[in-house]
């Protein structure tokens, strides 16, 4: 019995010491994909978090901030596991993340079970995370995948003259959102994207030969919404297979995480139009300052910050600004803090951002094209800025819902 009591005591003591440590500092959790096909993206996201914290010197609202990291592998389960540890074990009242679309949907559901914690998005960009069944304590200061496509469908239809496109995307909520955002204006203007020319591949797909062989000849271009290693693999293999159709890029298909990689696909993607929340060459002091800070802090990072660094930075900065507003006081279960977040609007490296009533960002979106920079790096240069893009494309909420949830077939576009 003595051993029993001893062991019990040890268990108790360990537990108490684990929960009582660091009671003074405010803990902020950050979850990103640090394993698997999207690991490179997650690392850059964490750079964004660090950058925002450094800007605030790790203090906000008069409290010291301790950052705790959680890692997922882009699967919803792993994101919930990592977030649950940050909230329930480490006691972080504020969690920033996750990175990937379906993770965001899962965290939104988890957020509903933790009404006293505040969840601020990383860069997850699935539409339904905030559009349908949104959680009161989930905020997204980065925009989502359909918003990111603003202006692209119109541009390739009227400027590039494309009339029919094939679609290649990963098979989950974020690429569906991007495909919807691209095709909706494209098809409304008269473009076509036949259902049998839409290819959805699993995340982490290595071999695209069957897709490349099945691509139809009678399309004007391929719309590609792949990310990270998937995009690099497809571009390399398509180039090697002698593919010559012009590409239209999703927001993370031709961004720095892909353009920064070595290989022959480089020359191939020059001239690819795309759209997203950032533009590498935007001629604006706010953006230039952000790039300079990023390059100074992370010499081993990308030549220019990716949209992952940008998204995590914007969301972390929102978290810190709102903390300043409430003087670091979260004692009421964070209610005042969440009110401060909801009414927050602030300058980001890409312009002003504010939230709509479902706590989703309204921000400027950049239409871009890949060019070769002066030092040989590939960059996205700005063609046009679409100001203040909202999640409902400016339509009333009820009317926008009539488009239906994003999916492989939405919009039909035959």
């Amino acid at each position, binding site marked *: 019995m003595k051993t029993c009591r001893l062991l019990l005591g040890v268990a108790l003591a360990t*537990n108490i010491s684990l929960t009582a440590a660091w009671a003074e500092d405010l803990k902020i959790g950050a979850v990103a994909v*640090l394993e698997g096909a999207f690991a490179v993206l997650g690392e850059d996201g964490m750079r964004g978090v660090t950058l925002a914290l450094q800007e605030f010197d790790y203090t906000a609202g008069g409290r010291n901030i301790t950052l705790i990291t959680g*890692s997922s592998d882009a699967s919803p*389960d*792993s994101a*919930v596991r990592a977030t*649950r540890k940050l909230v329930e*074990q480490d006691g972080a009242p504020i969690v920033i993340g996750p990175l990937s679309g379906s993770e965001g949907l899962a965290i939104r559901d988890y957020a509903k079970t933790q009404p006293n914690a505040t969840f601020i998005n990383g860069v997850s960009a699935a539409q339904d995370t905030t559009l349908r069944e949104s959680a009161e304590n989930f905020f997204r200061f980065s925009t989502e995948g359909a918003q990111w496509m603003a202006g692209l469908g119109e541009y390739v239809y009227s400027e590039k003259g494309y009339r029919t496109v094939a679609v290649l995307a990963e098979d989950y909520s974020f690429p569906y959102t991007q495909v919807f955002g691209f095709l909706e204006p494209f098809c409304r203007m008269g473009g076509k994207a036949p259902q049998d020319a839409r290819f959805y591949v699993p995340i982490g797909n290595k071999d695209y030969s069957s897709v490349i062989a099945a691509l139809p000849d009678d399309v004007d271009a391929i719309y590609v919404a792949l990310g990270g290693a998937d995009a690099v693999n497809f571009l390399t293999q398509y180039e090697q297979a002698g593919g010559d159709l012009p590409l239209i890029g999703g927001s993370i298909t031709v961004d720095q995480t892909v353009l920064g990689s070595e290989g022959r696909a480089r020359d191939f993607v020059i001239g690819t139009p795309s759209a997203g929340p950032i533009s590498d060459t935007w001629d604006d002091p706010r953006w230039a300052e952000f790039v300079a800070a990023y390059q100074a802090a992370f010499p081993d990072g990308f030549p220019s910050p990716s949209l992952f660094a940008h998204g995590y930075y914007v969301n972390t900065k929102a978290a810190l600004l709102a903390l300043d507003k409430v003087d670091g006081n979260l004692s009421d279960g964070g209610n005042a803090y969440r009110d401060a977040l909801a009414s927050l609007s602030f300058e980001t490296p890409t312009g002003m951002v504010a939230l709509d009533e479902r706590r989703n960002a309204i921000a400027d979106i950049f239409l871009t094209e890949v060019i070769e920079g002066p030092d040989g790096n590939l960059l996205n240069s700005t063609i046009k800025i679409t100001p203040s893009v909202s999640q409902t494309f400016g339509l009333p909420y009820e009317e926008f819902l009539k488009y239906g949830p994003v999916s*492989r077939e939405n919009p039909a576009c035959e």
Partner: protein
Amino acid sequence: MKQVHPNWWLAAALLVLYPFPANDFFTVQIGAYSLILGTIALSLMILAGYGGMVSLSQLTAAGLAAYMVPILGTNTQGVLGFGWSYWFTLPVAVLTAALFSALVGLIAVRNSGIYMIMITLAVAVSVFFFTRQNYEIFNGFTGYSGIEAPKPFGLDLRAPIPFYYLCLIVAVTFVLTTLYTARTPFGLSLQAVRDNPRRASALGYSVPAVRISAFFLAGIIAGVGGIMLVFLNGRISPGTIGVDVVIDILVIAVVGGLRHPIGPFLGALAFVLLENFAIDLIDRERFNTVIGGAFLLIVLFSPDGLLGLWGRLKPQIGLASMTTKRGSQSSGLDIEPNSLKGRLSNENV
């Protein structure tokens, strides 16, 4: 009944009292999750330890049972969801896992060793990709969410402490059942088939029948583990039964030790602790190396896992045996050089 060693009572007391000092995270995410992973790994341990058959599709069986819960019951995805009561859903889910496991057994039992591993891995990978690309039944990459545990008599089984005890009862029941079954004629014939299939066959046992029955029973355990898993997460998607998780279950079973049904639970606890806290020990880009390194060290210094480590340490710290009555034993005769048996059961040390 034989005298039960006091250490078992101590372990039982610790497990029962555990949720009271622990917070919700330790109760559910460490405690209950370890018990669930241990239960699923137990299903693998039974086949590997008592039957000499390493099946990598036990997690897949668990996953199918987990999928049956939202498919037959309710979910928030708007796909299928027949709204059956839990009294029908859960038995059907367990039966699905058991039948699936038996089917895998049917395909795999005529092979052994590395070939059986390959066949069962192939099944696991196929089911994983099938669930990911099938939208009519499995709802693709997104899978199902919004799955709730039953609330019999107003008791929310998913609340931390009830859920922990539910998992504990499930785990203890299966460990005791396993220990009991190992000494029944069926359990003995399974071990006989493991040690010397030819002799067992000559004695009149149908080797495939014994093995397939073992797969069926292991499937029941995996199925119940899968149901606990879906209650824990409230969701199920192909990522839950992905290849890396399949390997995790194998790691848990091997690291814990395959000689005693308690092994998988030790392995699961070690795995869950490392998975959750390795990231706090080292910078975030390298924590997976710590996890891998820890398991490598365990297997390197103790080929029969944490159980073996305990067995070697206990004479030195003066504790009496906790694992003497082990159920799975090898005869020491090894006429089948290809079988994994020599490595899996370590009678001769």
